[in-house]
């Protein structure tokens, strides 16, 4: 029984307690605040599971940007709460039994895993020097499973198209309805003047260090998105109209460059998304740089929601 184990026990107990609270809370706002706290603790769990890349992603997305989305939705929907009909007791009991069974089955698998433990870590490490990268997770994301990563970027763009198409017809291409702080507030102005320069440095650092240390395009892009949203909430910069060509270009820039590099693989290395020997790292850095910008813009626009008014011409 050492200190590290006690820490893990405390952490696991906290995660479980807060999760229960999120489900049991009476009003939605409490559940959302619980979820922000939960995302934070989950980042600590990922550190304890030696997955620092994941911890960075969870810290940025899980509690940061998702928290913002949920908080915005909770305060908009506040007045609709009492009208919701709750589920009857027999149904609740049935659901509880079902969910407990599923949890127990999964737990059984954790406690009694199959005899041989399957791992790709040695293979991943064995071929990593060929790529020039030193962060194995970046290697998986951009070399071994690059196709997944490319499709994931496409999913982000599709989600954005989906969110935009929820706007009323006459607001298509208009300005997203991000809640802008209306009272002139000097403190918030100060924060959004001081923080974004630092945030941009951290974002670029995350992207740059990602080749060799935990970090990468997702984490960097999320920080950029958060800083952009902050500046817009404070009203220092107006939310851009979604029909701006530049904006749309930035959204597809990353996936497009990644796709071009992938197609070049046919000509130079014999298959889709293959890198010619010796050029893997520079190509990955180019793709990641473009992706960082695109992820930043796309996540920011996703968080800002569908267009709700038109730009004045």
């Amino acid at each position, binding site marked *: 029984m050492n200190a*590290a184990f006690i820490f893990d026990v405390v952490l696991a107990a906290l995660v479980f307690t807060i999760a229960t609270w999120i489900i049991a809370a009476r009003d939605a706002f*409490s559940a959302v*605040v619980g979820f*922000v706290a939960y995302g934070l*603790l989950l980042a600590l769990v990922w550190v304890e599971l030696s997955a620092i890349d994941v911890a960075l992603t969870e*810290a940025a997305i899980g*509690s940061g940007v998702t928290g913002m989305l949920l908080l915005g939705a909770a305060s908009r929907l506040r007045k609709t709460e009492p009208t919701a009909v709750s589920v009857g007791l027999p149904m609740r009991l049935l659901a509880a039994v079902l969910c407990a069974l599923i949890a127990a089955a999964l737990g059984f698998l954790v406690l009694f895993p199959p005899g041989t433990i399957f791992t790709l870590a040695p293979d991943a490490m064995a071929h990593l020097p060929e790529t020039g990268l030193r962060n194995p997770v970046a290697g998986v994301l951009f070399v071994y499973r690059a196709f997944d990563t490319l499709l994931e970027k496409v999913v982000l763009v599709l989600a954005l198209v989906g969110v935009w198409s929820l706007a009323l017809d006459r607001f298509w291409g208009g300005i997203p309805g991000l809640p802008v702080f209306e*009272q002139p507030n000097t403190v918030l102005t100060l924060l959004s003047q001081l923080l974004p320069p630092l945030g941009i440095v951290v974002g670029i650092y995350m992207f740059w260090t990602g080749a060799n240390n935990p970090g990468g395009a997702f984490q960097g892009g999320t920080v950029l998105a958060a800083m952009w949203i902050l500046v817009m909430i404070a009203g220092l910069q107006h939310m851009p109209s979604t029909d701006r060509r530049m904006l749309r270009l930035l959204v597809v820039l990353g996936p497009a460059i990644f796709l071009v590099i992938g197609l070049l693989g046919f000509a130079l290395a014999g298959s889709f998304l293959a890198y010619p020997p010796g050029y893997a790292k520079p190509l990955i850095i180019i793709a990641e740089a473009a992706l960082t910008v695109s992820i930043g813009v796309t996540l920011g626009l996703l968080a800002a929601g569908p267009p709700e008014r038109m730009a004045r011409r």
Partner: protein
Amino acid sequence: MASILIGAACFVLAATALGLLRILRGPADADRMMAAQLLGTGGVAALILLAVAVRTPAIVDVALMLALLAAFASVAFVSSASRSRDKAPPATDPR
């Protein structure tokens, strides 16, 4: 030394998480938000203590990320809450 640091991380985490009881009690949304803010600072402290204890400097990057986004949730809360309040009951608004 490592155990002392991890012990301290454990203590900070437990102490600030206890503050989450404010989410239960409320009474106002602002109080609930404060509890999350405190846990954020506690999480940052626990992370840097862990980073030094297990000698993994990359963990400090996670703390840096949390510190950078620490204000984010609260800013989003204040801006969206004041917007829905300002627009909801026009009668109570003197303007």
